[in-house]
């Protein structure tokens, strides 16, 4: 499939490489990856373990810095951003869902969700309102005052999704979000992503190793040995 440039491209990379230095060895994790992700697209990055899929997600999510190449997100060339601008960029434009239930144990579900909104400068009332809206989207409004230890793994992951959505991100990054969940919860999470993408046009880029997840997404980017080997969808 041809890569499509233009206004509907939200992520574009060109010759993106990431090489890790391990002692005296150089280990290339990504090799000159060039790809585009369209707005409102639900894409999956798939590949074997060690293929570089998480590394690619970390570069695109600005959690790591590439060794070479360019990333343009929402029209902004990322290499020109300072560390604090990258932090602000992540806060304003990105939402993250990690494999582990990455929510704070001291906070309630609602507080976990509205934390990024607080950091954006919203008032406590606005935060609470937006937080409840986000929790409703993931079907957990009634669990707003519960702390993580009082929730199941699937519920915690949905809280993490609500947190990722609170600032209405341009892109939602998900790094194997169902890896630690049972089948029922995994299905629920994927359906939630699908609904978000379908109903709100949320751009979602998800790393997964579950082959059946390929049926849920618009497109699969296959990686092997740090290179894009196929684009399906």
């Amino acid at each position, binding site marked *: 499939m041809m890569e499509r440039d233009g206004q509907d491209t939200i992520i574009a990379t060109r010759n993106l490489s990431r090489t890790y230095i391990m002692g005296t060895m150089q280990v290339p994790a990504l090799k000159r990856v060039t790809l585009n992700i369209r707005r409102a697209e639900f894409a999956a990055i798939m590949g074997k373990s060690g293929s570089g899929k998480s590394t690619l997600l970390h570069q695109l999510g600005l959690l790591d810095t590439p060794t070479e190449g360019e990333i343009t997100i929402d029209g902004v060339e990322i290499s020109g951003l300072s560390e604090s601008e990258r932090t*602000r960029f992540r806060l304003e434009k990105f939402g993250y869902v990690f494999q582990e239930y990455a929510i704070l144990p001291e906070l309630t579900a609602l507080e976990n969700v509205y934390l*990024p909104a607080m950091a954006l*400068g919203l008032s406590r009332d606005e935060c609470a309102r937006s937080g409840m809206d986000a929790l409703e989207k993931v079907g957990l409004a009634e669990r707003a005052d519960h702390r993580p230890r009082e929730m199941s793994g699937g519920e915690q992951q949905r809280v993490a999704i609500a947190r990722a959505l609170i600032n209405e991100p341009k892109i939602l990054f998900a790094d194997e979000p169902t890896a630690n969940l049972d089948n029922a919860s995994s299905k629920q999470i994927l359906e939630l992503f699908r609904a978000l993408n379908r109903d709100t046009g949320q751009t979602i880029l998800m790393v997964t190793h579950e082959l059946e997840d390929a049926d849920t997404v618009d497109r699969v980017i296959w990686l092997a040995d740090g290179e894009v080997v196929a684009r399906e969808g």
Partner: protein
Amino acid sequence: MTSTTSELKVSAFLAYKSIAKGNKGTTLLTILIMALAFVNLMFMSSLFTGMIDASENQVIETLYSNIVIEPKDDETYIMNPDSILKKVDSVPGVLGTSAQYVTASTITYEEKSGAWAVRSANPDDEIMVSSVHEMMIAGDYLSKYDRGEIIIGKEVAGGHGGSLEHLSLGGVVVGDTVEVAFKNGVKREYRVKGIFDTNFIQSNQLAYITEKEMESVLGTSDMASQILVKTKGKGGEDKYVEQFIMLGVHEDVKTWSVYAGIIAMITQSFDAINTLISVIGFFVAGITTFIVIYVSTVSKRRQMGILRAIGIKESIIVRSYVFQAIFYALCGCVSGLIVMFAILVPYYTTHPLIFPMGDVTLVIEQKNTITRGLGLISAAMIAGFIPSWRAVRETILDAIWGD
């Protein structure tokens, strides 16, 4: 809302949640250690302040009162002291005055003798400026018309466990007769009417006879070696000195502090010890906070990485740990103050410590409290900042997925 305000709000929110929903035992233990560090800082400084205060009070109560009027440099005596007393007594706030003769003497009892100062006193006036009359440990204080009688300090008498026992008369008791050789060559025998113990080594080396007795020895009349002036409170003497001079007192007018050279030396030594102890106390508090925050940052390493990943600024995270450190330090200060004011100060007021300069209680000064409180909080802030700042130096990926 400005970005700084909202960042501070997020930091405070994270700090509050971490303390409120974190491990209560750790929080209480940290506060306890901070409170002990603060009590340690406060106790030593209060004790030293108490010792200095006791020394100053002794100088005022048993040696020089608040203000001393002395003859001008080229004169031996103040002439016509009554006219000066009249002027001084007219100043509001002056509680009493006493004109004294002071002369050097050698006092002998049996085979022992020593050199001590003898002061004269008009007992009616003297009790207004001095507390010696309240500190008789044997016999009685002088009466206005006593002749041939003397009262002596315990360091002169000996036998009362004084610090200078080897220089004393070796155990004179009330009723014994001592011979006094005055500086002008006159020798007289006196019956010891009383022995006093002021708990202050300097004033315990004095002897007193009545004014009339001294005038008969010196062959003087209507003169004085010095006039002691008791004023209301301690610390405002300079304004009285100004008023005395304005009223036409042309003699040499000095406050008690001029005579308190020994206290200046004590203060200097105490300040040095106090500084050393304070520095150690700040280190203890700082290291405690450092360990607590360090352990917290290590256990929350992944959590800090996730916060950074979702766009929470590093400064917000670091500040949340600094806020926690401030909380621990503030709670430690408040708890420490409660221990000081509710337990230690009342205890040492009823059970004062016995020192050569007198009975010492704990004296808490506002300035000292604020300085030490701010010092403790500053130490905690630095100790809270360092481990959290180091923790956010790590890359996000290492923080979340590192070993």
